[in-house]
């Protein structure tokens, strides 16, 4: 009786999860994260491969993408909470207008490094189609999760994946 109830309960819980996962993941998931080096807002240069061994959340954003405005405070919270646990959050602006992107970043007061990419290679490497896009890179440099856009509650999905990767 208990087993049956447990199985049915599990099924009830599993179905919504299966429904969410039914959407095919972006093709970049499961591949090695393309390396990059970019200049951060404070003038330092940061290279992705130098964070090997840590879980890295890379957030591509643009000033003109309204979701970015909602996402940055959520990422601030995530960074503050999980920084000590070994999570690295990197924000990458793909705005062509560097000055306005800087102004936007200054206004959002991110607690994590924000970098600027004015070229097109990185967007091509990461198959950026829509903004914002968030990817999670595991400790061995493989992209494990990619998320396009941002709406309320998505930060919880990020947290689930982050916790799982930090446990590995």
């Amino acid at each position, binding site marked *: 009786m208990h087993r*049956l109830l447990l199985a049915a309960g599990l099924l009830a819980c599993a179905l919504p999860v299966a*429904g969410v996962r039914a959407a095919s993941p972006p093709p970049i998931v499961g591949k090695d994260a393309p390396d990059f080096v970019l200049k951060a807002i404070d003038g330092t*240069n940061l*290279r992705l491969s130098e964070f090997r061994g840590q879980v890295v959340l890379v957030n591509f954003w643009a000033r003109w993408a309204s979701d970015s405005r909602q996402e940055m405070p959520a990422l601030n919270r995530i960074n503050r909470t999980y920084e000590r646990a070994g999570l690295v959050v990197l924000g990458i602006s793909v705005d062509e207008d560097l000055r306005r992107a800087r102004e936007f970043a200054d206004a959002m007061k991110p607690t994590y490094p924000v970098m600027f990419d004015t070229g097109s290679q990185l967007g091509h490497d990461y198959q950026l189609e829509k903004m914002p896009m968030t990817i999670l890179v595991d400790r061995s440099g493989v992209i494990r999760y990619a998320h396009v856009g941002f709406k309320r509650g998505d930060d919880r999905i990020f947290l689930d994946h982050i916790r799982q990767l930090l446990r590995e």
Partner: protein
Amino acid sequence: MVSRPLHVRSAALGAVLLLAAIAALAAEPSPAGASAAAPPAAPAAAQAATPAATPGATPGATPAADSAAVAGKAPTPAGAPSAPAAGGDATPAPESGSGEFKTLDQEVQGLKKDVIDLNKDLFVLEEELLFPANTQVAVYVSMDVGTFFALDSVTVKIDNKEVKNYLYTAREADALLKGGVQQIYLGNLKVGKHELVAFFTGKGPVERNYRRGATINFEKGVGAKYLELKITDKVPKHQPEFTIKDWE
């Protein structure tokens, strides 16, 4: 907006299935009924569990296997002499287990070494094919002292064409200061006269933004050409110095 109705629909479906399962149990409490209800739940549960369980299971299993290997290895020297003396049936089993682990470990190590050797050979072959000695040009960067200059980036132009633009992280600049030499560019050039221009940007004395260039005209012969971009301190002038050395 799209995922919410899906959630709701799936949750409702789950609740219906839950009720159906309870009703089936109430109607037919025999083991046959239970086994009939189990199969539809099993694949769904397995599907949901697989992505979460697989990555978690692997690292969990590895340390266990490692500890088993360690545990198997550790008692071997002490346990080996005692085993024949005892003559029991139980003692040889752990020995053979540790032996298996040992041979497996050796095999894995051997395979790893083979892969590394193959990779090295492939790298050499690739370099020989892509950059044959008669056209090869390699440019290196080295830095000495660095009191008056903090390196940020180097841009290399050959015959007025930008071939490399490299941004240095703090770690990389530190590695150069510790005596490291970086191959910044490897390419092909035809025999004849060429010009290389290197631009160095960074922080100069008194934390000022600093950008300097250095030029070299060189003749590419039939052999490989090696050029070194050297950043040194000019102590009397309290300024950095940028030179290009042509290694014949």
